[in-house]
């Protein structure tokens, strides 16, 4: 970062490549600004203008990301950020989950009588943070992006201001999340101290140059950074916050967190991991120990997530635990990555599949949620297939996918993920994983039992389904099946993305 010590004017100009590489961010940020303007203009009802602006921003960003796909990586802001396929890959996940979240929220917020424009702004902000996380090459930028994302999400979690559970979730998340951020930051400081660089590339260069000179400070620093991410993805033993927060947050937000936020954390995690961890010249002893830690963590995560999910009766909380479990599967991909031919591509494929099916499931929950996020207990789902045949069908698709049963995305992704783990000779880990997914089948299918095989309890009214939610659900169903049947494109994209780092 010696370059920062002198001011060089050429750094302040943007080449056309750089400009177009920044377009997605401009779209999102521009939309945020415009939406704020629209929101404060009291003369018109803010709902639709804001939504229009927000969606335009997100869709514009998606379009411009799509235009960037496959292009050569572009370094931005003096190498603090990069726009490569890896970035685009994740940006698409974030943006799409942003769009879906917005779609799901429209009717939801009406129901909760809290249709405020800020909500959409916060979604945009956190989407921006996520995008930055995936693209930054600098620990401080990562921190800022992380905070940008998290702060917005803290507020979203507590968005149901008058609801006790929402408040509680927000405060818990805030306290623990800030603590974890501080830990991450402390790790960054230690890395900086031991390598003399705050940029990931700089750290990598240092490691490559002095493989033998790795100090405990470096190791500790790198690990603390990783813990920051492990906290966000809720790997055991850093998972404790997750069920409570997922349960307390408004349902669409939970969906957003489960997909976007987790993907963002993995995006940054992976970048840092690849840079400072395995691929580099760490000593074998550390690699073995790192492997052991991740291995244990993966096993515990899968076991804990699945076993506790088994006992849940609230669907949101169940999906929270299942989300922990899925983190465990993702960690398997993390462990297998360096040793298998496909590298981290299976992990990324899984993230996509996971995002699609989980988003879908949460949109369905958002539709069915009654005021104050009620109506999400198992017995509320009794006879759903009669009230909402299509919704039940969609939910069934998502649940089968989550359980990893063909021909759905969940199966294809899991197949690829575990396959690469076998290639990495992690057979025991895979055996444990598949047994854990067998456990998961039980609680996913139990929901189906309620939806299809039990008669409705009491008088249950049909929840109105908004067009927006319907579109979102339909799109996610299509995507789940599409990826399940034709996983090749996603796998290739992931492969391209990971090789562009």
């Amino acid at each position, binding site marked *: 970062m010696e370059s920062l010590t002198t001011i060089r004017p050429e750094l302040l100009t943007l080449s056309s490549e750089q400009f177009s590489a920044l377009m997605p961010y401009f779209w999102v940020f521009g939309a945020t600004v415009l939406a704020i303007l629209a929101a404060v203009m009291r003369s018109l009802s803010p709902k639709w203008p804001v939504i229009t602006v927000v969606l335009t921003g997100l869709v514009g960003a998606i379009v411009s990301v799509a235009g960037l796909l496959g292009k050569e990586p572009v370094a931005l802001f003096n190498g603090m950020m990069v726009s490569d396929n890896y970035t685009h890959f994740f940006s698409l996940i974030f943006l799409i989950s942003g769009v879906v979240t917005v779609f799901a929220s429209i009717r939801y917020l009406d129901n909760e009588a809290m249709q405020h424009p800020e909500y959409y702004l916060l979604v945009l902000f956190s989407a921006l943070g996520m995008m930055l996380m995936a693209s930054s090459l600098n620990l401080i930028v990562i921190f800022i992006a992380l905070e940008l994302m998290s702060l917005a999400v803290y507020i979203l979690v507590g968005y149901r201001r008058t609801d006790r559970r929402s408040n509680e979730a927000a405060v818990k998340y805030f306290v623990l999340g800030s603590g974890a951020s501080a830990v991450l930051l402390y790790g960054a400081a230690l890395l900086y101290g031991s390598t003399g660089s705050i940029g990931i590339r700089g750290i990598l260069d240092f490691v490559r140059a002095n493989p033998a000179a*790795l100090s405990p400070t470096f190791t*500790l620093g790198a690990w603390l950074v990783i813990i920051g991410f492990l906290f966000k993805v809720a790997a055991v033993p850093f998972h*404790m916050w997750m069920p409570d927060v997922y349960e307390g947050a408004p349902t669409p937000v939970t969906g957003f967190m489960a997909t976007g936020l987790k993907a963002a954390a993995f995006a940054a995690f992976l970048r840092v991991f690849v840079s400072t961890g395995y691929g580099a010249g760490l000593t074998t002893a550390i690699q073995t120990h790192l492997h052991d830690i991740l291995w244990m963590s993966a096993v515990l995560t899968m076991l804990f997530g699945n076993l506790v999910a088994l006992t849940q009766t609230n669907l949101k909380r169940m999906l929270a635990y299942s989300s922990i479990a899925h983190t465990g599967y993702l960690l398997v991909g993390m462990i297998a990555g360096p040793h298998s031919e496909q590298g981290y591509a299976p992990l990324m494929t899984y993230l996509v599949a996971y995002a699609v099916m989980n988003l879908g499931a949460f949109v369905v929950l958002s539709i069915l949620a009654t005021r104050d996020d009620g109506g999400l207990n198992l017995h509320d789902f009794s006879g759903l297939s009669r009230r909402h045949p299509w919704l039940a069908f969609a939910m069934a698709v998502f649940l089968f996918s989550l359980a990893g049963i063909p021909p759905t995305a969940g199966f294809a992704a899991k197949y690829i993920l575990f396959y690469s783990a076998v290639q990495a000779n992690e057979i025991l880990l895979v055996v444990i994983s598949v047994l854990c997914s067998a456990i998961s089948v039980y609680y996913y299918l139990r929901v189906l039992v309620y939806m299809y095989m039990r008669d409705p309890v009491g008088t249950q009214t049909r929840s109105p389904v908004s067009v927006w939610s319907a579109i979102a659900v339909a799109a996610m169903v299509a995507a789940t099946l599409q990826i399940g049947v034709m996983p090749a494109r996603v796998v290739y994209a992931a492969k391209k993305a990971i090789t562009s780092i």
Partner: protein
Amino acid sequence: MLALIALLPLIGFAINGLWYVAVQAPPGGKKAGATVSGVIATTAIGGSFVLSLLVFLRLKGMPAEARVIEQVVFDWMTIGDFNLEMVFRADPLSSIFTLFITGVATLIHLYSIGYMGHDATPGKFFAYLNLFSFSMLMLVLGGSLPILFLGWEGVGLCSYLLIGYWYADMDKASAGKKAFIVNRIGDFGFLLGMFMIYDKFGTLDLLALRDTVLQSSSAGLLLAADLTAITTICILLFVGCMGKSAQIPLYVWLPDAMAGPTPVSALIHAATMVTSGIYLVARLNFMYSLSPTALTVVAVVGVVTAFFAATIALVQRDIKKVLAYSTVSQLGYMFLGCGVGAYSAGVSHVITHAFFKALLFLGAGSVIHGMHEEQDIMKMGGLKSKMKWTYLTFAAGWLAIAGIPPFSGFFSKDEILWRSFSAEHGSFLFWLLGAVTAVMTAFYMTRLFSLTFLGSPRFKEQGEHHGHSTHPDGHHEHGHGGAVHESPMTMVFPLQVLAVLSVIGGFMAIPHMSWLDHWLEPVIPVDHGVAAGVAPAMEWVLMALSVAGAAAGIFFAFKLYADLAKVEKLKQRWAGVHKLLENKWYVDELYEALFVRPIYTLSVALWKGFDTAVIDRVVLGFGRVSEWSGQTVRVVQTGSIHLYAFVLLIGIIATAGYLLYGLA
């Protein structure tokens, strides 16, 4: 042509069966008389008889050594070098069986037209009867063991169906089931024997098997192990025969089988099916002859069965039961013959027995028919005058079975007795038991004859409609009144024919100039060898002794049953023995306690105690353990922010510590 012999009854079956299914079975279906069905069925089997006769004549026209007609209909199963053809083969043995089977069957079909005249579903009855004939013919014409087995099981099936023909009576249905299952136990042995044959000799074709065995034995290729194997094979197959031919310990089904209509008892459970065991042993004589052990087993089982069944027959009151036990006993004789190596003697007794036993059963049927389903001989008597033809023909059968010369039974039985004494594998004990049995046979048959036809009637003639009905098929609802009457002509005619055959049938196998022995020679080598130390003159002595014994039996029986009060006294004096015999040595009860109950209890225990209580519990246990661990672990999530942070800290310290430890 061979295939047609078997096929004709099958066609008859198809016509009658379809007719039954299409017309009689559907609700509101027409009630049809027995005549049409009966004529169809009788024509079919009659056609078979004619064809059999033609085949017989053709064989007769051939040189003795070449007397084989073969017809391959199609390849049944072909797997690699395992090839099983659907092949029919007629040789002297099977042609003689075919002949008497079709002959007797035709008569019984004819008889049934009258007997089943008032049945509700005659189509079904005659279809079954034809199916039986088809199976039986498959059994004797089949050129390989599996085809033989096809017939073997087929007759078992028909037996099952016909015993339980009046299925509305649970006891009758049970009797059918019992027959099938006990036969299955025998078939189990048959199957294993077949497998072993295939394993050892690589073929199941009877002719090829015979060649293989005879050639390797004459070439001296059979080692001790092979002979042991042959012994095992023979005994296993004999287990099959025990089932089918009702030998100890598998005879228990046959007495119960009398639940079926009487023509069925005559055809299946006296004349034909039950003798298929003897057919099998005779057919495989080349193997049995190689195994003295197996022969001994056959002989011992045979003679013991003969004696044992005769004792039971002494005290039975049901006319059909007496005949049934006598059948078991006579079958024992046949096996005794086979067991001492006198296969053709066994076969000749099969044929004579078919004549006189069919006659006796049909006669009994006629009596029952005339008595309106009364089967207890204690409630009969004096039928001589009321049923003249039945009486006369029955008498012929009675004398034949009692072994009075020159009736047919005498020749065949005497030959068996003589051979059981004189043959290489024979012994005095065999003869003694056989002879005692012969005396008992004469006794109980005379008892039966006397109680049924002689003396004064012990029943009341009912002038009105005979009300009691156990058969809802309306079998009893025939319109004519309750008077005891002679049976119609369709029933009497077969009786007459059979009576003639019973009288003269024995002449085909007169000792020392037996036409039958000669005829069977290509299949069954004639062996009149006499064991060392047996004087040829003994034959006449023994013959005289057995005739005298029979006469004595008849005499005592007449004497005794002329005065029933005396019988009662005798009964009381020997109450224990009588009870034991009346209850058939409690064999059924023994089997119930020994096999049926324990297996049933075990099955329930396995189901409730293992399937549900162990396997399922283990399986569900996995679920429970998961659920339980989930419940246990979830307690960690106390909701306390401090605990959450603490776990976070512990995680950091533990992982970082482990990592740094790796660095050190």
